[in-house]
């Protein structure tokens, strides 16, 4: 941590403009202190399926956080993220003239917000700007957490989310009860992994007319118009009942995972070679959520349920008509019916007297799954034990994907994640671990089988 005094006007640095609060104006007269901190994460993955290969989707990351409290009722925060991909994009001599070919990188103003405490009313807090709004009580597997899109840049890092611009107001009715209201002006989509990582079906797996051969393909994303009426909003009421924290929530917006709504197959020659254009959109959804966390007989327990109310999505497929080339064949199929579906996570944890910690969760519906008939079950169990004054942590996590409980023998996927981490000193953590994926064809974990890997990670905080 470094504390320095700067004379720069911090909101400019943060990209946030705030006026009208007299307390803030008073704070400008004295130089606000800016607290700079952050971390550096280094991540190297070795795929071990056939031969040992270096994975190309992980990234190293530098996070720089700037914080300031110019006055008692104002807090400013921003974080800058620099991602350096473990890839080499150079394919020609010209590429070698650019540093970014050898080390592709991205720089992002990841978060930038202002907290206005006791805004107008003593019990009202406001957060304005690009922010992470974390909902849900489950451990990373949160079906009610739909305000920020998922960051699948590293799909094996479950539960990562991308901050989005918005206004988040919380009114504290009492110490135990509060009511939140959130407005997100526009939809932001999920981030996909770079390199080879099968998160969704690609175009080559989609059904094509018989006798055709796919030679070209392209996809086209259509976001909702950036109109105010297309903005998203949510509300949440939180409280405590019999020593259980709970919340009831409602979200109205868009599904941030794009869905195919149109396929156009166009002949490129007379030999049966075709081009496929895939059009994707973001369906409207409403989500009613409930979560709670507490304990029974000393066992920590949590539960989270989300009822998704989607709009119907039809996929229109246009194919060449061999009889009448000017009038293509058009077929439509409902791929997301307008019927509610429920995702949930139930879990618990316990620490035994010998220090062994166990955490178990049952999740119905993965992040990318939607529609009543497409939700699978996942049981995740983790065990941890710390040694040497908490410097060494041994962890073993395992997951079972249940595609069809009635025929489990043929419909399961597995993941096993052993990890040892060591903190030789404060602010440094070294980890060595592995992902072993398996199961039966057609399951999510099996499709990731090529991603069996050993990883080495280093995290340094400052």
């Amino acid at each position, binding site marked *: 941590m470094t504390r320095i005094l700067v004379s720069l006007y911090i909101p400019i640095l943060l990209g946030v403009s705030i006026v009208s609060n007299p307390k803030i104006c008073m704070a400008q007269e004295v130089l606000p202190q800016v607290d700079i901190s952050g971390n550096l994460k280094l991540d190297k993955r070795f795929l071990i399926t056939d031969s040992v290969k270096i994975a190309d989707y992980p990234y190293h990351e530098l996070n720089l956080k700037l914080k300031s409290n110019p006055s008692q009722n104002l807090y400013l925060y921003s974080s800058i993220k620099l991602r350096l991909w473990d890839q080499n994009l150079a394919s020609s001599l010209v590429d070698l003239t650019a540093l970014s070919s050898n080390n592709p990188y991205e720089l992002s103003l990841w978060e930038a917000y202002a907290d206005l405490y006791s805004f107008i009313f003593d019990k009202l807090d406001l957060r304005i700007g690009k922010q992470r709004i974390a909902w849900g009580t489950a451990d990373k597997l949160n079906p009610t957490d739909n305000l920020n899109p998922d960051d699948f840049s590293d799909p094996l890092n479950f539960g990562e989310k991308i901050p989005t611009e918005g206004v988040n107001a919380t009114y504290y009715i009492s110490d135990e009860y509060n009511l939140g209201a959130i407005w997100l002006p526009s939809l932001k989509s999920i981030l996909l992994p770079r390199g080879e990582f099968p998160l969704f079906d690609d175009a080559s797996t989609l059904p094509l007319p018989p006798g055709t051969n796919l030679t070209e393909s392209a996809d086209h994303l259509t976001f909702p118009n950036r109109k105010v009426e297309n903005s998203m909003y949510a509300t949440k009421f939180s409280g405590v009942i019999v020593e259980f924290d709970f919340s009831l929530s409602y979200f109205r917006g868009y599904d941030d995972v794009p869905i195919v709504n149109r396929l156009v197959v166009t002949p490129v020659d007379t030999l049966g070679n075709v081009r496929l254009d895939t059009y994707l959109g973001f369906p409207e959804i409403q989500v009613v959520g409930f979560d709670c966390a*507490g304990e029974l007989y000393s066992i920590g327990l949590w539960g989270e349920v989300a009822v998704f109310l989607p709009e119907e999505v039809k996929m229109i497929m246009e194919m060449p008509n061999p009889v009448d080339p000017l009038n293509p064949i058009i077929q439509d199929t409902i791929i997301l019916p307008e019927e509610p579906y429920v995702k949930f996570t139930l879990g618990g944890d316990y620490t035994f007297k010998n220090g062994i910690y166990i955490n178990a969760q049952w999740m119905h519906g993965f992040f990318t799954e939607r529609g009543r008939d497409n939700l699978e079950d996942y049981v995740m169990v983790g065990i941890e034990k710390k040694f040497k004054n*908490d410097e060494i942590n041994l962890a073993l996590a395992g997951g079972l994907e249940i595609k069809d409980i009635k025929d489990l023998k043929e419909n399961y996927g597995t993941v096993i994640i052993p990890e040892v981490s060591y903190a030789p000193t404060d602010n440094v953590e070294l980890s060595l671990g592995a992902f072993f994926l398996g199961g039966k064809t057609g399951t999510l974990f099996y499709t990731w089988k090529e991603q069996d890997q050993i990883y080495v990670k280093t995290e340094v905080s400052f």
Partner: protein
Amino acid sequence: MRKFLRISAALFLPIILWGGTGDEILKKAEDAMNASKDRTATMKLTLIDKDGDSKVREIKMWQLGKEKRLIKFLSPADVKGVGFLVLSDNEMHLYMPAFKKTRRIASHVKNESFMGTDFSYNDIGKCQYTKDFIAEIKKETEEEYVLELTPKPKSDVNYARLIMRVSKAHYIPGKIEYYNKKGTLLKVMKNEHIEKVDSYWTPKKVTMKNLKKKHETVMELVKVAHDTGLKNSMFSKRMLKRAE
């Protein structure tokens, strides 16, 4: 002889009455430790392992009455911003800034190490010994009372017995020994450099030694202020997740 006994009784009775029972002395010790209405303190925690290697943490603590505490980690960087809120013996919450989430601490965690120190969540959170323990005077010297504390039925403590040495001068316990059911001495806590700050007796150095791990945590008072008028609303989940 009978007359002598009567005189002796007459001489010693006031002393016994003045000294009180074990529970009364424990109550006085508890009152002495929580004498001010509120307290705001910055503390340096040094964690020392059996090889003598040390790690330093810095925390800020606000306390209101005997029950409510709010603790924020100021350093090192990897735990900075972590917050711990104690509303009662049964209700504790932890805020982890990396996840932007507040979580209620379940009972199974309360006897675990508090952020790598030799204090457990219960040691840090519990300010009221009289709620959980029955005290008996085991020994009395000119300087101190030696109390034996045993848990009350259904109390949520991990120790079977505590031996507490309470100073007669100011009632701040100088030393507390923590034993398990087998009678093994697990931890020893020492309050040292006890001085008057803002007219309240205040230990400026607290050492908790874990004998099994051969590890100790030294908590030194860097800055302290009493009776600054902290409000009840300061001790809430709202304030826990709020930046200082």
